[in-house]
């Protein structure tokens, strides 16, 4: 049975590993995109300007209401359509080009992550101690300094647990991109099952790998939370 997982032509080890690499890449590239969108959404919904608030709120509500897979289809097909329209406008003879499934995955998963992260960050902002912000003002710090030196470092403390959950969700949601033909862990597993007719073995393997990634994430997150809570007494 071990030849099944062997490296090279005979086994599926290299295919599965390549799939895993794609999955990890996708998640890691999506994270900053999602965080960036999350910060934008949080700022928008906390802003004093009504239209901005409406925009932030609208984005969050829409993304939260859509099934992730639908978002993915809309991004993949819609963005592909736009890309080709743009290309043809630029150069009428351009051959139709495919929107990369990887990019579509990053954008779609990033948009979903961003919507939820926006809520987490907004909540974290609102739970920051106003008195500490005033203390910053009182010594003459600018709003930027207050944000960078007082709010942001403490934001992590309040946002980390929520963001950690979102990261783990997103890690699992990467499996969705297998339906738009990205060769991630999920898709390679399905291919292997199709060829070898050994669903139990390969799905179990995939389960173990996803599970291992989650456990690893949780260990790292716990470490980060411990760091962020440096100096904070357990229950104040």
């Amino acid at each position, binding site marked *: 049975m071990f030849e099944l997982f062997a490296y090279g032509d005979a086994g599926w080890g290299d295919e599965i590993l390549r799939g895993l690499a794609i999955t990890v890449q996708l998640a890691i590239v999506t994270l900053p995109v999602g965080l960036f969108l999350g910060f934008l959404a949080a700022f928008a919904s906390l802003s004093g300007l009504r239209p901005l608030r409406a925009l932030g709120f609208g984005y969050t509500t829409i993304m939260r209401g859509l099934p992730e897979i639908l978002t993915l289809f809309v991004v993949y097909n819609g963005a592909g359509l736009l890309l080709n329209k743009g290309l043809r406008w630029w150069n009428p003879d351009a051959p139709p080009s495919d929107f990369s499934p990887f990019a579509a995955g990053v954008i779609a998963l990033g948009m979903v992550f961003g919507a939820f992260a926006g809520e987490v960050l907004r909540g974290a902002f609102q739970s920051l101690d106003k*008195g500490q912000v005033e203390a910053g003002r009182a010594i003459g710090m600018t709003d930027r300094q207050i944000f960078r030196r007082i709010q942001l470092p403490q934001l992590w*403390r309040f946002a980390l647990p929520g963001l950690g959950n979102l990261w783990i969700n997103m890690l699992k949601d990467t499996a969705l991109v297998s339906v738009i033909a990205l060769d991630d862990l999920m898709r390679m597993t399905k291919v292997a099952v199709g060829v070898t007719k050994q669903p139990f073995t390969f799905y179990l393997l995939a389960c173990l790998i996803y599970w291992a990634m989650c456990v690893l994430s949780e260990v790292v997150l716990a470490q980060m939370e411990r760091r962020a809570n440096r100096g904070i007494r357990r229950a104040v």
Partner: protein
Amino acid sequence: MTKPETILKAEDIHKSFGRLEVLKGISLEARNHDVISILGSSGSGKSTFLRCLNFLEIPTSGKVTVHGEEILVKNGKPQNVRHIEDIRSRLGMVFQQFNLWTHRTALENVMEGPVQVKREPNAEARDKAEALLKRVGLEDRMHMYPSQLSGGQQQRVAIARALAMEPDAILFDEPTSALDPELVGEVLKVMQSLAAEGRTMIVVTHEMGFAREVSSEVVFLHEGRIAEQGPPDEMFANPKTEVFERFISKVK
């Protein structure tokens, strides 16, 4: 003798929250070495007035001058917004709830202002912060986080943090009101020593002992106006207004 220099001057400060007029025209002048205690019953506008001085609260109208730099406010709009941060860095503030930055140690709390706002070199700011923490009796607590300190120790760190900016005057808003009774003394002692070294201080307080013995002037606020003002001995010996008389008989 030369007339002591005016450090801070507030002229005709008004402040309304919506339709509630909290300050109805308050003027106050602090000269070098003055220690002014502001008294008044709860809701009389003491905190609001103090916070108007460094624009944590923007007055509805009035004028604040610190060290020759003035900010005029009309219809809730300060005329030269850019001076606000400048004025704030010249006025220290100590809060009832300490408001230390919980993610920084005592030493880092004290260094933050000089390094970030005044752009002092790190080493210099550190030396100064260490000296100040020693000055408030916390040389053995410098590397502790606020959560590891008692209320009295936290408030002394907050005082060192204000001092580190080398302010022209320090504003205190009920600095001992959040403390357990046995910790009040250590903070008052530090404040008393600041007064003795000639610091200009404006102190909102319920500590009658401090007002009587340490301050050079007492201001009694009532319903958003100064009801009575003068040297503490005179004021406490023969109150001129009925409201102040009632106030001191209540706190005694």
